[in-house]
């Protein structure tokens, strides 16, 4: 655990030295009755960075995302998103973010386009801007079935609309919780390209995944968490060098003695 402690210390130093952090998490704790879901978690995410939050199922990834997006209050600790404290200014935070939940949360009686536009309206977007943004997002992923009710969509299509809804408000910070779960390899590759293109638009992306190759391909930095604790932090390359590992999966194996995918 000494490496994890060192990494945590590094992240603390980083948060105090940089003024360009999109997200600052400090000593975050979330308890559900007797269960510690997030345990003294600290990390920072720079503006314009794709940040991978990795860990097996039940590691605390989704709970962390829920706290950062204002859905849950932490038991203790602080979290700043876009410079705003998530517990004190949740509305300001919600104006800056887009959230792609793990479960495709979509109205089945609406078309793909209507779902996207509905959430644009909930972000109080201008009508003209909303139409243009919807068109550009659908074109970006080459989505052809947007005028059809989502009831008949495949799992992969639902996932794509789920992702586009998260980006309709042109968020500065996007939380993508397992965005490619259930997609076939081809759709997954296409989605990776799309997520990669967000970086070119200077968007900060927090990507939670248990697909290690996804995190390696996309992330500038990753935090690996297990049992709610940060156990490694750095760029994929740094971590692989540090632990003399072939990939991040081996890094996790080296630190914990088990595989990330075990819990799935």
């Amino acid at each position, binding site marked *: 655990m000494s490496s994890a402690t060192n990494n945590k210390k590094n992240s603390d130093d980083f948060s105090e030295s940089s003024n360009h952090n999109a997200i600052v998490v400090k000593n975050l704790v979330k308890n559900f009755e007797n269960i510690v879901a997030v345990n003294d978690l600290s990390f920072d995410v720079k503006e314009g960075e794709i940040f991978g939050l990795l860990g097996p199922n039940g590691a605390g990834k989704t709970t962390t995302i829920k706290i950062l997006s*204002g859905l849950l209050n932490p038991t203790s600790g602080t979290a700043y998103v876009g410079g705003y404290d998530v517990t004190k200014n949740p509305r300001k935070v919600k104006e800056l973010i887009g959230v792609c939940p793990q479960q495709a949360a979509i109205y089945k009686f609406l078309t793909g386009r209507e779902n996207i536009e509905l959430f644009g309206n909930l972000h109080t977007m201008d009508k003209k801007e909303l139409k243009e943004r919807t068109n550009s997002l659908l074109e970006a992923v080459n989505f052809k079935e947007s005028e059809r009710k989502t009831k008949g969509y495949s799992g992969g299509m639902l996932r794509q609309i789920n992702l586009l809804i998260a980006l309709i408000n042109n968020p500065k910070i996007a939380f993508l919780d397992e965005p490619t779960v259930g997609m076939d390899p081809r759709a997954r590759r296409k989605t990776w390209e799309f997520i990669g293109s967000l970086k070119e638009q200077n968007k900060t992306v927090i990507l939670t995944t248990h697909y290690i190759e996804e995190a390696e391909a996309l992330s500038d930095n990753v935090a690996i968490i297990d049992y709610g604790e940060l156990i490694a932090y750095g760029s994929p390359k740094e971590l692989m060098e540090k632990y003399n590992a072939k990939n991040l999966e081996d890094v996790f194996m080296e630190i914990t003695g088990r595989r990330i995918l075990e819990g799935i």
Partner: protein
Amino acid sequence: MELLKIIREPAYLFLMLLFPAVLTLVFGLAFAGIPSGIPGVSQFEVMAPGLYAYACIFIIMVVAQAFTDDREQGLLERINTTPTSSSEFIASHIISNTIISLMQVVIVIILSYALGFRPDNGLIGFLSAFIFVVFLSITSVGLGLVTASISKSSGTATGLSFIFILPQMFFGTFVPLTSTTRIIAQFLPSYYVTEALTAIFNGAPLTDLNVLFNLGMIIAISIVIIALGILIFKKYGNK
């Protein structure tokens, strides 16, 4: 959006609009020819005010199902990640479901008229009745919110909504009351609406003291229940 759902979902369309229509037709055909004991008045005409109230209380189940469905599918949580507050979201649902409930009443009014129901004070009577059904609809939406808050799934919500629907149906709408059931009915919102509507359709003006008392009661009940529904839903049902 709720209105769009009616158009797009056939099962929902049936539940929301056709069910009250079918019920009115069945009651009309079954009771229009049966004398009520009042000279020149059929049993159906006696039951008609209760049918208007009944059309409103069915929205309890619809609201409870809609909110639990949205919650189960993660939609409520997703909406909570946008700057739209839960109060704004609940308010939009209250407005749209109240409108749907009123549409149901309009269908029942038109059909009952077609089946021969003629209130003593004509259009004024119908318009006066509408004031009451607006408040009963708001009350029913509030009870739907309470049901959604205490239900873990939409299946449970359907069952639990009958806790509020059945007593009102039997003791506060179209079923004739005895001296015992009247005592129970006085605890139910629909009772005050049915009582007022019966008086209005028999020629009483809105300024009649009994009608005003019933109006005051349903207004007070609707305010308390909708406030309670919003509070309970925000605390327990919105997660």
